[in-house]
């Protein structure tokens, strides 16, 4: 028996009559702590202040916002823990949008019109499910996937609540992907897909395939999901990550921009957009995405990757204001404490950005003096971009050439060639890039002969 009177409810609807009706329903169930929110932002503020145990939200909210956007915002930004219930109330016109959510979906929903009895059955069911799966959510929150998998396997064996079967299988698949046991995850999702047309299982399988670098197979599967409905936002997100992996940053950016336009307050997607746009050389879009995150959570809320992107955007702008330079300088000072030579990508990015932002001989000399390190390790494409940018900026074109040669040897130039090419052109050093390419091609021919 669930103790409803202990739970804190938040009812969100812009219509007073609907709020009162929902309040009467949950009071009838025995709820005592009931709060109401009249709009999207009112709801955000209340959830921020104290996360309710159960959120009951109408899909259509005022200010052109909807319940799915609210759900994404409070889940992605950690305001509502996964063990708390988010329950959606929807008219059948928006019903397809509600069920199309693949990853961030409500814990349950009810279609209007509904009777208080039906709401009670659904709500109690959702609460009960959360209680049953609590150990799983706790393990997932702590990123302890082994523990989460143990719990799921135990429950699958026990079969005491067969109606939670798909939930358990889904989490099992996700844990297997997180533990890099993608083969097992794919077999599991295949078994589920044979049973029914589950878009979430296809999207999850596509993610597993992508992790295994099976990009074409992954892309085909995602295309299939996207063809069945454009409402599967998670599928679009996976498609963007496949395109990114394939080096098609422009198409990846276009997809992410579409997603962000739908919900600008989803910081996770804004962050992804900032990253991809930067790789695509679209500094303006990247900068706007970072600022959209900052607008919500402030500069101090940015994570380490976002702070690097913030400085990168500024470093790639043509005319950096003194105020921006000062802010970047302070950011780099803060980041220095977190960066060690062992964190190779961050270390290389930090020194490159330091040379670019400070525009003084000591930073640039220090950067050039670390030449052996820049040539010893393999870096991510965006860090290679930073290194070449800094080398050209510090008037060390020979070092830039050496780095490009290293990228060619590691087959890393091709996906980012347009960006690197544009960089050499911007410094009037296009000939140097062509020279390295020529030399490498010749070496290859000679080697073959």
């Amino acid at each position, binding site marked *: 028996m669930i103790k409803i009177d202990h739970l804190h409810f938040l009812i969100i609807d812009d219509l007073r*009559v609907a709020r009162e009706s929902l309040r009467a329903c949950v009071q009838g169930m025995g709820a005592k702590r009931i709060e109401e929110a009249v709009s999207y932002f009112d709801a955000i503020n209340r959830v921020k202040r104290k996360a309710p145990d159960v959120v009951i939200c109408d899909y259509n909210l005022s200010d052109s916002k909807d319940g799915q956007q609210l759900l994404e915002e409070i889940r992605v930004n950690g305001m509502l823990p996964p063990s708390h219930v988010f329950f959606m109330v929807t008219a059948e016109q928006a019903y*397809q949008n509600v069920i199309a959510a693949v990853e961030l979906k409500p814990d349950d929903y009810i279609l209007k*019109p509904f009777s208080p009895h039906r709401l009670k059955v659904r709500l109690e069911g959702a609460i009960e499910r959360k209680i049953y799966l609590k150990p799983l959510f706790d393990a997932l929150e702590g990123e302890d996937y082994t523990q989460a998998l143990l719990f799921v396997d135990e429950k699958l064996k026990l079969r005491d609540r*067969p109606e939670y079967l798909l939930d358990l299988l889904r989490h099992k698949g996700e844990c297997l992907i997180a533990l890099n046991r993608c083969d097992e995850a794919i077999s599991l999702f295949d078994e589920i897909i044979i*049973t029914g047309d589950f878009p979430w299982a296809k999207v999850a399988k596509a993610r597993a395939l992508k992790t295994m670098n099976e990009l074409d197979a992954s892309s085909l599967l995602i295309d299939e999901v996207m063809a069945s409905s454009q409402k599967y936002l998670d599928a679009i997100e996976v498609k963007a990550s496949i395109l990114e992996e394939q080096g098609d940053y422009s198409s990846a950016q276009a997809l992410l921009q579409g997603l962000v336009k739908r919900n600008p307050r989803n910081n996770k997607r804004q962050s992804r957009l900032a990253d991809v746009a930067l790789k695509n050389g679209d500094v303006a879009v990247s900068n706007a995405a970072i600022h959209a995150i900052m607008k919500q959570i402030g500069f101090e809320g940015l994570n380490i990757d976002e702070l690097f992107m913030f400085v990168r955007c500024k470093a790639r702008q043509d005319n950096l204001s003194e105020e921006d330079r000062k802010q970047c300088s302070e950011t780099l000072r803060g980041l220095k404490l977190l960066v060690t030579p062992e964190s190779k990508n961050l270390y290389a990015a930090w020194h490159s950005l330091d040379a670019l932002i400070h525009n003084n001989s000591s930073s640039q000399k220090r950067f050039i003096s670390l030449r052996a390190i820049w040539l010893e390790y393999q870096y991510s494409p965006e860090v290679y971009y930073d290194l070449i940018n800094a080398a050209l900026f510090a008037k060390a074109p020979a070092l830039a050439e050496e780095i490009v040669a290293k990228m060619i040897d590691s087959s890393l130039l091709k996906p980012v060639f347009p960006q690197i090419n544009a960089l050499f052109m911007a410094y009037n050093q296009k000939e140097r890039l062509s020279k390295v390419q020529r030399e490498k091609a010749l070496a290859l021919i000679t080697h073959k002969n």
Partner: protein
Amino acid sequence: MTQATLRILSSGIHDVKNMLEVARAQLPNGINACDEASSLIGRAQDRLSRMLFCYRLEENELRLNLDYVSLDVVVQEALLSCSMQLGGRKSVLIESACRPIALFDRDLVCDMISNAMQNAIRHSEHTIVVRILPGENYGVGSHLPTGCSIEIHDDGPGFGSFQNVNRLISEGNGLYIARHIAALHANHGKQGRLVLGSSPLLGGALFRLELP
């Protein structure tokens, strides 16, 4: 009827359904007459919802939201929506052997069952029996159970009597949707189906939904 006309009609139905929702929400609780009014409004809304489902079926807009759902819970939900109609005058017995689950769209099937139960209550003399039965292969295999059915028996005149035609006409919309919804459910190459017949148990009508 043109597509445009159909859209106008469906949008009108949708608006009326929502207006009824607002009207129902404004009825005071705890007054018998109001409870009855609320129940009537609810039934009118259900009727309008079914018309919208018909439209979406015709337009191929209906997408299933499949999950493993306990049939017991669905029957419980459906029964609750008929409680006002039952009014203590007729009894509903539920027989469920092993709390089976099946793969189906909970909302669609729940509406279908609740519609079938309302019809059974309307036509029965005293008793309705709801049976939840696991399929032949239920529980066989590694993870995913397949096949269940739900039967609604009543002791009314049944589909085979004089009232047959009238009953089928009056339940036309609901049965049309029910057949479609049943057929939309497929699993391991098998398709769901709806069987209407005579109840060997109570002598009246039998409504049997088979989910693959």
